[in-house]
C-alpha cells in the first residue's frame, strides 16, 4: 500500500514537472514535493515512523531514492529553463564580421625583419650607422679614394662640407670594425641613397650589409652563408652562383646569382629567361680595408656581402615596381 503511494507520487511529480514551463513554476513544484516544510516527502517520512520496524528499512530506501530522483529532476529542469532564458539571439551568420582595427607593416619592414631573424638565428648582431655619412666612412675607408673611377659606380647626393647621404650600408662595416675587434658577425640593414631615378631605380632604397671577420673565415663560408640565408628566406632549395666582379672593398669580389626563385631556374620574365637572379655583391674583405681599421689581415680574414631589401620584397610578394615602396598608396600598404 505504501509502495503504491510512492509510485503515485512519482507519476504526479513527472506530470507536474512536465507542465511547469517557467522557473517559478518549477520552484513551486520543488516546494510541493521536496520542500522541507509541507512537501509530499514530509508526509511519507511521517508514515515511515508508523511502520513496523521490519518494514521500515525497505520503505526508507524507496523514499530516499524517490527524493534523490525528484531533486535531480527539478535541477535538470531548472537548468534547461535557465539555458533557454540565456540563449543567444539568432544571428544572420552570413553578415560580415565586425572587425577590430588592425594596421599593417610595410613590406620593407616585414622582409627586413625576416632577414634579420634568419641572421640572428645564425648568431649575428644587428648593427646600424648614420644615414648622413662622411666621405671617409662611405668611401675612403672602403678603399674608394677621391678622384678614383670606382666612385662613379655610385652617384652620390652631397650635403655641405664633407657630408653625404650614404650610398651603401658598407660604412657600418667600418664603424663596427673601428669600435671593436674580431670576432665580428653583423648585418646592417638600412636606407641608402643614390642619385639615380629611372624606371628600375629609386633615389632611396634599402640594403642589408653583412660582415664576418674572424680567424679562418673563407670564401666557402661566404657561399655557404648566402646559400643558407636565401634558402631560408624563400623557403626553398636554391642554388647560389658566384660570378667574379669588382668592389673596391672586397678582393676577391663576386656578384651573387641566385637560381630564380619564381621559375626555379627554368627561365621566366623576372629572371629575363636566364634562370638566374643577380641579388647582390660580395667578397672577401680587402686587406686595404683592414688597414684602415687596424685589423691584422694576416691573422684575420673576413667576408662581406650586400643585398637589396626592396628586391627581396619584390620577389617574395610579386611586387612589380620599386616605386610602390615609397609611394605609400593605401591600396598598396593595406595588402601587407
Amino acid at each position: 500500500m505504501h509502495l503504491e503511494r510512492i509510485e503515485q507520487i512519482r507519476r504526479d511529480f513527472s506530470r507536474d514537472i512536465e507542465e511547469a514551463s517557467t522557473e517559478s513554476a518549477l520552484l513551486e513544484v520543488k516546494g510541493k514535493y521536496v520542500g522541507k516544510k509541507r512537501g509530499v516527502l514530509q508526509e511519507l517520512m511521517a508514515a515511515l515512523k508508523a511502520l513496523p520496524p521490519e518494514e521500515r528499512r525497505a520503505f526508507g530506501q524507496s523514499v530516499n531514492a524517490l527524493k534523490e530522483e525528484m531533486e535531480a529532476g527539478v535541477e535538470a529542469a531548472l537548468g534547461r529553463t535557465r539555458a533557454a532564458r540565456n540563449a543567444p539571439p539568432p544571428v544572420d551568420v552570413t553578415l560580415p564580421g565586425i572587425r577590430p582595427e588592425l594596421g599593417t607593416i610595410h613590406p620593407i619592414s616585414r622582409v627586413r625583419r625576416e632577414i634579420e631573424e634568419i641572421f640572428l638565428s645564425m648568431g649575428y648582431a644587428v648593427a646600424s650607422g648614420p644615414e648622413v655619412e662622411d666621405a671617409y666612412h662611405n668611401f675612403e675607408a672602403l678603399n674608394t679614394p677621391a678622384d678614383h673611377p670606382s666612385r662613379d659606380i655610385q652617384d652620390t647626393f652631397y650635403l655641405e662640407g664633407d657630408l653625404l647621404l650614404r650610398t651603401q650600408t658598407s660604412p657600418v662595416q667600418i664603424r663596427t670594425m673601428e669600435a671593436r675587434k674580431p670576432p665580428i658577425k653583423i648585418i646592417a640593414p638600412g636606407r641608402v641613397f643614390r642619385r639615380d631615378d629611372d624606371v628600375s631605380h629609386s633615389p632611396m632604397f634599402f640594403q642589408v650589409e653583412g660582415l664576418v671577420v674572424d680567424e679562418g673565415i673563407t670564401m666557402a663560408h661566404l657561399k655557404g652563408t648566402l646559400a643558407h640565408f636565401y634558402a631560408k628566406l624563400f623557403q626553398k632549395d636554391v642554388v647560389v652562383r658566384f660570378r667574379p666582379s669588382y668592389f673596391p672593398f672586397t678582393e676577391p669580389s663576386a656578384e651573387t646569382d641566385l637560381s630564380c626563385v619564381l621559375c626555379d631556374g627554368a627561365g621566366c620574365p623576372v629572371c629575363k629567361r636566364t634562370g638566374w637572379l643577380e641579388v647582390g655583391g660580395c667578397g672577401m674583405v680587402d686587406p686595404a680595408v683592414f688597414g684602415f681599421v687596424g685589423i691584422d689581415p694576416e691573422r684575420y680574414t673576413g667576408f662581406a656581402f650586400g643585398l637589396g631589401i626592396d628586391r627581396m620584397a619584390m620577389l617574395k610578394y610579386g611586387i612589380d615596381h620599386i616605386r610602390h615602396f615609397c609611394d605609400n598608396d593605401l591600396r598598396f600598404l593595406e595588402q601587407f
Partner: protein
Amino acid sequence: MKFPIGWIAQHVELPADEEAVARAFTLSGSEVEGREHVEGETVFDFNITVNRPDCMNVYGLAREASVLLGKPLRPPDTDCAEAGPPVADLTGVTVEAPDLCPRYRARVITGLRVGQSPAWMQKRLIQCGIRPINSVVDVTNYVLLEMGHPLHAFDMAKLAERRIVVRRARAGETIVTLDGVQRKLDAERLVIADAVRPVALAGVMGGEETGVTEATADLLLEGAVFDPVSIRRTSRAFGMHTDASHRFERGVDPEGPVAALDRAARLIVELCGGRLAKGAVDVRPAPAGPRAVTLRHARLEALLGMRVRPERCSSILRSLGFGLEESATRVWAVTVPSFRVDVSREADLIEEVVRIHGLEDLPSELPSGVDPVGGRPPEQALEERLRDLLWASGCSETIHMSMTDPALEAAFGAGREPARLSNPLTPAFSVLRTSLLGPMAASLARNRARGARRASLFELGRVYPRGDDGAQRESSGLAILLYADAPPARWGSPRPPGLLELKGKVEALLERLGIRASFESSEGRPFAAGSCVAVQAGPVRLGRLGALDPQALEAAGLKSGAAYGAELDLGALSPLESQPKFAALSRFPSVVRDFSVMVDKRVPWGDLLGALKSLPLADLRSADLVDCYEGRGVSEGQRSVTFSLTFQAADRTLTEADVAPVADAVMGVLGPRFGATLR
C-alpha cells in the same frame, strides 16, 4: 662597352656557340650584359668593371678568351716601315710636368693624304658605337678599340715650331676643343701645347685648331701616359667624358704607347700613304720597373676554403701574362705584366687564379661561432616593439624618402634651416626632413585625391635636424597620423578619429613600454592653436601631439578633413623603457563607488583627477572617468562628470564602514575648490 665578336675572333679562335663564349666571359668577370646585331655581326655589350682597363679593348678581351679557352693569342700586326728621316729632325717633345705625364711618345708621318677610311674599318667603328670621321682619326679610334691605348693625331703644320710641350696650363689660357667649345684653363689642367699655346686637353680631347683635316699632310701621333687623377679632374671639371679619358682615368699600360703607335703608323701609311719618320720621340723620365708580388699557395687555399692544385695556380697566372718560377715552397714571386695596372697585392693574384679557375667548385660551408654582442641594439628593439604595438592598434606603416620638399619642411619642420642637398634630383626632394609628419601628410593628400577618406598611419624613421650649433644631427622618431574627412559610415566601421583617439594611442603605447608620461598643453608648428599637447616624462620632452594646423595640411596638399598627428623622439623614449613589474594580486574583493557631479565645464578633468588623487583615501586603487556629458538636462556652462573610485585592501575585505567617509571627503574637496555639486 660594345665589341663585335668577329673582331675578337681575329685574335683568338672562338667556338661557334656564341652563348658559350658569352658565358665564359661572364663567369670570369667580364660580364656580357647584352647582345645585338650590327652590320651583320654579333656585337657583345660588355660590362667591364673599373679595375680592368686592360679588358676595354678587343685584344685584351681576346687575351682573356685565349686563357679561358686554351687557344693561342694572335697579336695585331705592328710592323711598320720607316721610310722617312729620323724623327728628331722633325719635331721635339718637352715634358714640363713629368708628375702628370710619366711618358710621352710621338711618331711623325709626313706627306700623307687624308681621306675616308675603308669600309671594313668604318664597320668596326660603327659596331663599337663610334662615328667615322676621316682616315687618320678613324685609325686612332680603331687602334684605341683594338689595343686600348688612346692616341691623338696633330696636324704638324699647325703646331707652332712643329713641337710639343707637355705642361700645366697658364691662368688665362683658353682652348677650343674638337667639340667646338671654348674652354678656360688654369694651372690645374694638364695640356699638350706647342711652342706657343695649348693644342689639346691632355688625355681628354684634342684642340680644334690642330686637329687632322682633309688638308693635313704631316702628322704627329701622340701615345702618352697621363696621371689618372689629373685626367679625371679635368674630365669632370669640363663635364667631358671621352673614350680617352675613360681609359686614362682607369690607368693605361705604361708600355702601351709603343705597340699602339706602331700599329697606328702602319695603318695610316697603309691607308693614307706618306712616310713614317725613323724612330719615335719617347720622353720617359722615370720608367717604373716590373712589379713583383708574392703569392703563397697556402694563403690562397686558406682564403678561398677550396683546394686548387699549385700547378693549376701557376699555369693560370702564366697564361694571363704573369711571370713566375716554379717553387718547391709554393711561395711564388710573381711578376705583374705592365698592362695589369690593377694587380699589386697577394689578394689580387688570388682573385686572378680564382676567377679563371672558376667559383663553381667553391664548397658551401657555414662558419662557426656567434657574435659576442649579438641581437638587436636596444633602440632598434624598441622600434620593433613599437611597430608591433602600432599595427595592432590599427595604424599602417608608411616609409617616406628622407629627402623632402622645402615648402613642406617649412610647414612641418623644427624651424631651423634644414640640411640642403647640393645636387638634388628635383626641388621636391632637395632638403632633409626634420619631421616625419610632413611627408606623411603629403602622402595622405595623394591618397585623399584617390578617394581615401580615412587613414591611420605611422612611420618609424630618422629625421635630420640641425643642432643649436648648426651641426648636422640624426635621430630616430615615431610619428602617428590619423585622418578623417567625413568617411561614410560602413558596416562595423569605428567612429572617425579625433584628438582623444590619438592621445589614447600614445597613452597606450607608453603604458606598454612602461613609461610614465604626462600630457601638457603646448604650442607650436605644425599644430593648430590651442590643440598641441606636449608629452613629458618629468623634465624630458618625449614629443608632441595635436590637431594639425589646416594651413600646414594645405601646404601638404590636403584641403579637407581633419588630421591629428603625434611625433615622438625614440632617443628620449629608449632609456625610459622599463620591464613590467609584477604587483601582487589581492585576494579580497574591491569596492566601487560612483560619483556624478555637476561642475563648470571649463574645469579640466585633469584638475578634478589631481584633486581626487591627492585625497588621503586609504586603499584607493584607481579613479576612472565614466562619462563626461553636457547638453540636455545639464544647465548652460556646466557639465556632468561621472567617475568611479575603486578601493581594495591587500589584507582584508573592506567594509561599508571603511568607504563610508569617502563621499564627504570627495565633495569636501571638489565642492569648495571647483564649485562641484553632487547630481
